[in-house]
């Protein structure tokens, strides 16, 4: 369901967000052709269409874009960025907004997706530079909670049955990732101050 009512109210434009995004891409070049939204395979799961996110960003509607579901269900397939006639890096804007939303402490409207990304990076960090998929799945499952609900709905048995099938095929076997020579250097990447934030 799109939040179309957003557009029926008067919006107070604020240039700040677009100015900050200008270091990444020029959202002000958007002339609302909607090519991004037409080609986006994920619109059925979004609250705003990609062109609406760009429009809202341009109008400085920070709370709307930082709190929306769209930025988290975007699969980063890069179709929008590829097709934009004005070379706006739309998928890059989605990434920028996700990072900014976390930085500003917005509650993710898609907590499972956010938690999956966080668990992934945590697994790489703890594993010393390479990803162990069983560690990722374990961390994610542990933190996402809802185990009881998953048990009741049968989803947990489905997950475990899939894990077992993969394990039998040698595709999901726990082993700690090997120790890399660059482990310390890689660990430091996780601590460095961010490049982009202005």
């Amino acid at each position, binding site marked *: 369901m799109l939040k179309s009512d957003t557009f029926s109210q008067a919006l107070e434009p604020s240039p700040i967000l677009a100015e900050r995004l200008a270091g990444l891409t020029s959202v002000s070049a958007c002339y609302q052709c909607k090519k991004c939204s037409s080609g986006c*395979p*994920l619109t*059925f*799961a979004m609250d705003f269409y990609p062109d609406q996110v760009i429009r809202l960003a341009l109008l400085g509607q920070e709370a709307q874009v930082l709190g929306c579901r769209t930025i988290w*269900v975007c*699969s*980063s*397939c*890069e*179709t929008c*960025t*590829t097709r934009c006639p004005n*070379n706006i*890096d739309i*998928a890059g804007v989605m*990434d*920028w907004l*996700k*990072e900014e939303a*976390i930085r500003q402490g917005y509650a993710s409207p*898609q907590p*499972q*997706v956010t*938690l*999956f*990304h*966080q668990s*992934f*990076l945590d697994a*790489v960090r703890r594993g010393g*530079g*390479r*990803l*162990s*998929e*069983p560690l990722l*799945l374990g961390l*994610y499952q542990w933190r996402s909670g809802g185990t009881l609900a998953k048990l009741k709905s049968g989803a947990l048995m*489905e997950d475990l049955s*899939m894990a077992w*099938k*993969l394990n039998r*095929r*040698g*595709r*999901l*076997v726990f082993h700690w990732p090997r120790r*890399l*020579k*660059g482990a310390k*250097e*890689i660990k430091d*990447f*996780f601590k*460095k*101050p*961010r*490049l*982009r934030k202005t």
Partner: protein
Amino acid sequence: MKVSYYPGCSLEGTAIDYAASIGGISRLLDLELEELEDWNCCGATAAHSLDHHLALALPARNLALAEAAGQDVVVPCALCFNRLKVAEKALQGPEGAHLGVPYQGRIKVWDLLDYLTQNARLKELAPKVVQPLTGLKAVGYYGCLVARPPAITDKTDAENPQNLEQLLKVLGADPLDWSFKTDCCGAGLAVARPDIIDTLVQRLYERALQAGADCFVVSCQMCQANLDMPQQRIAKKFGKDYYLPVFYFTELIGLALGHPEVKKWLAGHLVDPLPLLEKIGFRF
């Protein structure tokens, strides 16, 4: 011929069958894949979603390792390939100086499919086919991120790539045209939002069947997992009876070239391709 090889994390895990097929066919193709020493995770979607610096620093380190190794590097994973290319562009741009990574851009980053389907390599491949895959009706399904965005991947055919189809013809299979070859399957959301996958992937099944296909051929292990693993679940959810094996292109090269271990690679799949191969009269 020697080339550096960056496998990526999943080829040590859930895509170990893909890794085995790559190792297997490389010997048949006189290709020496030299795995980069001490490579690390590219950061994948998680890093570029949450941490811009990390999303460049992780793949940049791999690029520096590859350049130090002194030869081009091939990457079998679409996402790793994309992240390495993003880092390559960043290192050559204004952000490069901040990354503190020595990289001159003297090597080329290849995605494995592109590398193996260069004209000269396809010509070398043709006479090595011992059992053509006659009657195998397949749709090629390209990973989003090997092609998009072209400003990063340096590809000229992002909307309608042809090299998988060219390869299938050389192998004697019957590649079918369809409009969804570069549409996203949503693999990055497979764990957190399986319901989204059901919608996206069911559409791909339906479109592949409408095109007349009996199977998918992929060059991305995330696509393979995402089309293969939930097939039973999706069939149940939509009340359909899907049987669409999902081959890696490397497995089909192995089949056509008579590699003795192909059955072992295929045993890693959830949707067993053997009944289909039997149906088209393929003899192991």
